[in-house]
Each structure stands twice: as C-alpha cells, then as structure tokens.
C-alpha cells in the first residue's frame, strides 16, 4: 500500500488518441515520455489537448464522457488504461489540477490529509510534517479554511496535497495560472527543487512557455491535439520558430503581417 518509488518510474504515452463523446477528437497520435528525476513540459495554447492528456493519465476522463480510444499509457512498465483513478494514485501518479481546485470548505490541514488518502495514517502524519517544512508559510494557516487563502498559498496547498501520497510522478496543470509573477517564481523554484531532491518525475503543463522551459529538461509543443515540436528545453528555447510563435519573441524588428503567420501555420500542419 505504501507507494514507494519503483526503480524505473517512467511514464510512456504512445500514440494516444482521446475522443470526447465518441466524436470530438481532443488528442491525436500523441507520444511522449517522462523519466524519473526530470521535468518534462507540455506546451501549447488553449485547446491543444494538454489537460486532456493529464486527465487520461489520471484516469478521470470518464465523468467528462471522454475515453482513450487508441494508444497506450504505461508507467513503470505497467499499463494504466485498465486501472481506476484510485488505482493510478496508488501506483504513485498524482495530479495538481488546473486552477488549484482545493476543497475550499475544508481547512488547509484537511486538504493535505486528503492528499494522503491512499497511505496509512502513520505515514500520513510523517508526510504532513514534510509538506509543512517544504512550505513553511502554510504552518500558520493549517486550521484556516482553504478557500480564504491567497492564490499563492492555495497553490502551495495544492502542490503539498499532491505530495502527501509520496508520488513518483507529479503532474502539474498550469501552476502559474492567475498568480503574481513573484509568487510564480516561488512556486517554480519549489518545483525545480523537488526535481533536484529525489527520484520524482515531473510533468508540467504550461501556457507560459518561456517560464516552463527555463526549469524543464525536455519539452513537447502541442497544437490542436498533436505534438508539433519536441526537444531539449535549451534547444526549444533557442529555436526561432518556437521563439516567434510560442514565446512572442521576434528577431526581425517591425510588425509581422498575418499572411506570414498563416503561411507558417499551413506549412506546419503538413509537417505535423
């Protein structure tokens, strides 16, 4: 029951296709991997299929009438597709959902305890203390109702809650959403220190591509449900196409005409 990180705790998504309602294709033919001790980011605009992929990995597409119709998801060598969502958490995969989604009526401590639902009570108490030492700010607020915390504190609770189950794969869905730049910096520092501290694999989904690439080791760029680029974070950061269309940097001075953008998109569609 105690989720101990297996030696080869890596996630492989191979040729995944996700359909909503049996017809709407949200993810098409996507493959990527996350290895232990690394941060891998999925980048892309709204509707690119990033959150859908995380839901597919966590096994919670069901309530939204979605399903993984093709491809496979394996973790530490075992398939996840047949498991229920609680079975997947017990395997050591946990997700920090988009928008934090705390249990707003519960206290901070109760939120954290919920994160350790799958571990034994003794283990839960140990984990609780380690989360408080990772986020000392939370210690003073432990008996406050979570819904009344600031956005940054809520994000800390959300990450701490996920860490309560000692995951070997942590998935973060837009941790920077709606937070002040200074707070985002703190959160990202915490994420990269998590990677440095042990054999946890981190899958980071972000719209803020530049920020995500600065702490990631590898990145995949998704567009309309497909992977259009992938590479080392440094390569992606340096690539002119990525810089232009995802990071908003422009080498040539002056405004680009929409025609160039359209041309690029058409070309890329053929490449994908």
């Amino acid at each position: 029951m105690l989720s101990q990180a297996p030696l080869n705790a890596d996630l492989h998504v191979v040729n995944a296709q996700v359909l909503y309602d049996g017809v709407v294709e949200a993810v098409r033919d996507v493959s990527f991997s996350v290895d232990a001790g690394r941060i891998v980011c999925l980048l892309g605009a709204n509707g690119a299929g990033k959150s859908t992929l995380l839901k597919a990995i966590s096994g919670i597409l069901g309530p939204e009438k979605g399903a993984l119709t093709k491809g496979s998801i394996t973790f530490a060598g075992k398939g996840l597709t047949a498991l229920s969502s609680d079975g997947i958490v017990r395997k050591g995969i946990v997700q920090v959902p988009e928008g934090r989604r705390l249990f707003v009526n519960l206290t901070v401590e109760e939120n954290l305890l919920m994160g350790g639902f799958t571990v034994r009570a003794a283990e839960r108490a140990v984990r609780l203390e380690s989360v408080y030492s990772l986020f000392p700010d939370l210690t003073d607020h432990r008996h406050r109702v979570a819904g009344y915390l600031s956005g940054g504190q809520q994000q800390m609770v959300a990450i701490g809650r996920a860490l309560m189950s000692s995951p070997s794969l942590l998935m973060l869905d837009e941790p920077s959403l709606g937070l002040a730049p200074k707070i985002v910096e703190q959160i990202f520092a915490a994420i990269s220190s998590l990677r440095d501290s042990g054999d946890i694999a981190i899958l980071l989904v972000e719209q803020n591509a530049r920020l995500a690439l600065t702490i990631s080791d590898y990145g995949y760029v998704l567009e309309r449900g497909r992977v259009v680029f992938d590479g080392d974070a440094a390569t992606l950061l340096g690539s002119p196409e990525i810089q232009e269309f995802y990071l908003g940097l422009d080498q040539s001075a002056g405004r680009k005409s929409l025609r160039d953008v359209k041309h690029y998109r058409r070309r890329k569609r053929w490449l994908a």
Partner: protein
Amino acid sequence: MSYFLNLVFAGLAVGAIYGMLAMGYAIIYKVSRVVNFAQGEIMMLIGYISYSVALRTDASAPLVMLSVIAGAIGVGLLIERFIVRPMLGQPVFSLVMMTIALAVMIRAVVGLIWGLDPYRFPGSATGAPIELFGVYMQPIQLFLLAVYVALCVGVWAFLRFNIVGIAMRATATDSTVSLLMGVSVSRLYRVAWIISALIAGIAGVLFANIYHIGPDLAHVGIRAFPAAILGGLDSVLGSALGGLIIGVVENLAGGYIASAYKEIAGFVVILVILMIRPYGLFGQKDIERV
C-alpha cells in the same frame, strides 16, 4: 407552564427521531447530491427486521441491536450495489427517481411479509414515567434523547477526524478532485448508504418501542424531510438540529392551536426560514474569492 414544558419535551422526543432520519438524508445528499426519498421506508424495513428478531428471541436487547446493525449493513450494501452503482454517471435526478421507486417497493414487500396491521414491539416496557419540574418523561424517551446526542457526537467526530469522513466532506465540495486524491467514490457511497441506513434503523427501532411497528413508520420519513431542509440538506448536524426544531414546533402547534395544525406547522417553519436563509440554517454557501 408545565403544559408548555410537557409539549416541548414530547416535541424533543419526536424531534430526535426526525433528526436522526434527517441526518441520514444529509449524509447521502452530502456525498452524492442525491435526495434519498426511501429514507422512511429503510427505517421501516429495518424496524420490521428487528421486530421479527425480537419476537423470536424473547426481545433480547443485544440481539435486537445486532439485527439493526446487520440489517443496516445489508440494506446499505444491496442498495449501493443494485441501485446506486448502475446509475453512476447518470443524471442525479434519475437516481432520485430510483429512490422513489425503491420506497414503493419496500412498502410493498413489507406489506407482503408482515401485513398491514400495526403491532406492539415485543418487550417495549412502558415503565412508570419520571416526573421532573412537572414534566412527565418515559424512560425510553430519555434513552432516545441520549442515543440522539451520542449519534450527533459520533457523526460529528467521524466527519471531523476520520479520513473517510473528511473524504466525504471533500467529495461534497469537488468529487473530481476527490478521484484525483485516490478516493474510490463508489466505496464512499457505500459507506454513506450504510451509515444512513444504520441511523435510520436505530431511529426505527426506538420509534417502534415508543409507539408501535406498522406501515405508517414510512410516513415519518416524509415528516423528517423538512427537518433536513431546515437544517441545510448538506449539513449533517444542522439537519439533526432541524429535527428537534420541527418536532417542538409541531407539538406546540398541536397543543396550542389544534391538532390538525400539527402536520403543517413544520412546513410553515421551513417556508419562513428558507425565505431568509435559502441554504437552510446551517447549509454550506459556496465560498467565492473575488
């Protein structure tokens, strides 16, 4: 004055029964947003089961208690397996309709097995009433109130300190995230239905001991429903308190106005209260950060 006090005490005793049933409504509503309209029928069914056990065992108290627990677990598991689980992922309203169907079925089955005549519960000793400040109390009524208090404390502690209880409150706020934390929602529903059936069963046996056992036990469920609404349908302890309020108000209306008003007094109270507090007295208003 002593007339008033007597009315209040009798009201509390009835209200404790309402309160227990209302707690059952609230527990199920809290985790699954389903209003279980078969609550009164479940209470009646477990009441009849323990009546049969009492009849055959010479009203042995431990065996009757055991039959309530076993009955509640059995009924809770059966309902979860054959009614709740097949309906997972379907609209909540469909499941509410299923509970109405379940109510009709239980009433019919109970009528077939035990008949439609009320019986005296074996061993329900009507001991000499105790008099305190001019109020006459039956020992069983005091026992009932003690059980009510114990159940309130027990359920409060369960929801506050037990991880499964905390998970119930968490699921009430966000069931998808509950799944992400590794909570098996179907297991949680099972626990909720069993607890709810257990409290209803205890209420049923106590009611049967004070009055009688008969098909009209099912109506108590409908009378307890306003209590749950009054306290806030998602607040378990609020619903329990709502039961006491409805019980007392009913009795005062019956005693001072006319007994015909007893039935409607509770509903008048919820009309007024809901206009002031639409979530009920203790219902959870959603927290919104602005």
